[in-house]
């Protein structure tokens, strides 16, 4: 059995766990704990080690989705999770501009770990406070070439679209690379 993996990263409460949950064929193996820090009490629990989702591709190929912990103090896990990844998705909460700088920093960190293709997903686009995707591109200082796509992590089709775009980017890079 061959396995490949993609990493889903982003700031605290961006929607990484929900993103994986929407497409995983198994219940996401989550390492959520109750939030202790007062400043981070936006939600009741958070991922402290990783989330783990799985999609069976065919009889002998499985795709694993690893979600990183969003809180900074668990960032020692990031490098471990990024090892051997096919590509990564950076989830950004479109309604919380205060997290954009951190998202940018996480993006740079993962790019440094491995030069694999990546996608930036502007999550929670269904909420009224969501920033416009193009405004987010300026705010996140993303080059026009970087794929920044609207996303609603609770919506399976939306998550599928993000994963497909990442796979297209991987395919494109393979086609451009030398043998």
């Amino acid at each position: 059995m061959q396995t490949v993996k993609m990493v889903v990263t982003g700031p605290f409460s961006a929607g990484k766990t929900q993103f994986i949950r929407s497409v995983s064929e198994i219940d996401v193996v989550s390492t959520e704990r109750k939030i202790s820090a007062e400043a981070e009490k936006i939600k009741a629990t958070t991922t402290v080690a990783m989330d783990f989702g799985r999609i069976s591709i065919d009889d002998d190929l499985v795709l694993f989705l690893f979600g990183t912990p969003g809180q900074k103090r668990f960032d020692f896990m990031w490098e471990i999770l990024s090892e051997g990844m096919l590509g990564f998705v950076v989830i950004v909460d479109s309604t919380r501009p205060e997290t954009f700088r951190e998202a940018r920093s996480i993006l740079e960190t993962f790019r440094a770990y491995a030069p694999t293709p990546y996608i930036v997903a502007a999550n929670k686009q269904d909420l009224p406070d969501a920033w416009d995707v193009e405004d987010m591109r300026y705010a996140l200082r993303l080059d026009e070439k970087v794929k920044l796509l609207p996303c609603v992590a609770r919506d399976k089709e939306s998550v599928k679209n993000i994963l497909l775009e990442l796979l297209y980017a991987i395919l494109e890079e393979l086609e451009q690379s030398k043998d």
Partner: protein
Amino acid sequence: MALKGNLRDFTITQILNLINLARKTGTLVVEGPGGVAQVVFREGKLAYAQIGEEDNSLAAVLHRSKKINPAQYRILKERANQVSDKELGLVLINAGYITQQEVINALQQYFSSVVRRLFTWAEGIFHFDNDAQPPPDRISVKVSLENLIIEGSRQLREWAQLQEEIPSLDMALKFADRPGTNLKNIQLSVEEWRVVSYIHPKNSMRQIAQTTKMNDLEIRRVVYSLLQAGLVEIIRPAAPAAQPPVALPMVNKTTQKSLVQRLINRIRTL
């Protein structure tokens, strides 16, 4: 869709840059330490600005820019209660008191000065209202934002340089290994002495800042000067581990592409 946030996370320079690049039209409302500022933009250009209760009428702006004297200002203020800024401007131009260009220049300088004041606001919230326009009786102008952004960026540059030199306050300091250097012979400021007295490999810069009641900028300034003088060194964390292994199996490109295509086909059918 909403364009709103906090100045701690999103500086005025960044907001202006966004408005400029996206050629936005609307009103930026900033609630900060200096009150509420409303800055109107048309297609990414500064059109009008109001800060707090400050008088931004044409008469007040011309008085501030010394285009009219205090006596003229008093007369115009009385008259301004009956006519709009636009009408007042026309009267002044037609009477030959001032040229149209001088009116525009004075307003441009005043509105730009309002934006410059916003650069000093580190705290506050903002939102951008796509529909709000300047009051209809006021004269609006057209100021390119590039120069203002550059000015704002200069103010931020010091902070950025310090951050580059000292990326994290969670690192500790140690005295540089320079035999013969006697601190007693070096003239340090009070702030520098306060920091020096806490330098120890076990004390992070953040802890020193908390103890000496300095903010992030102040501690960085002091540490930077001590670094430049060669008196201290930063104890940096160990280098990260080597690059991880490659993602795709080390087979030929056709096999790799086939694998990715299988992934695509499966995801499509989910």
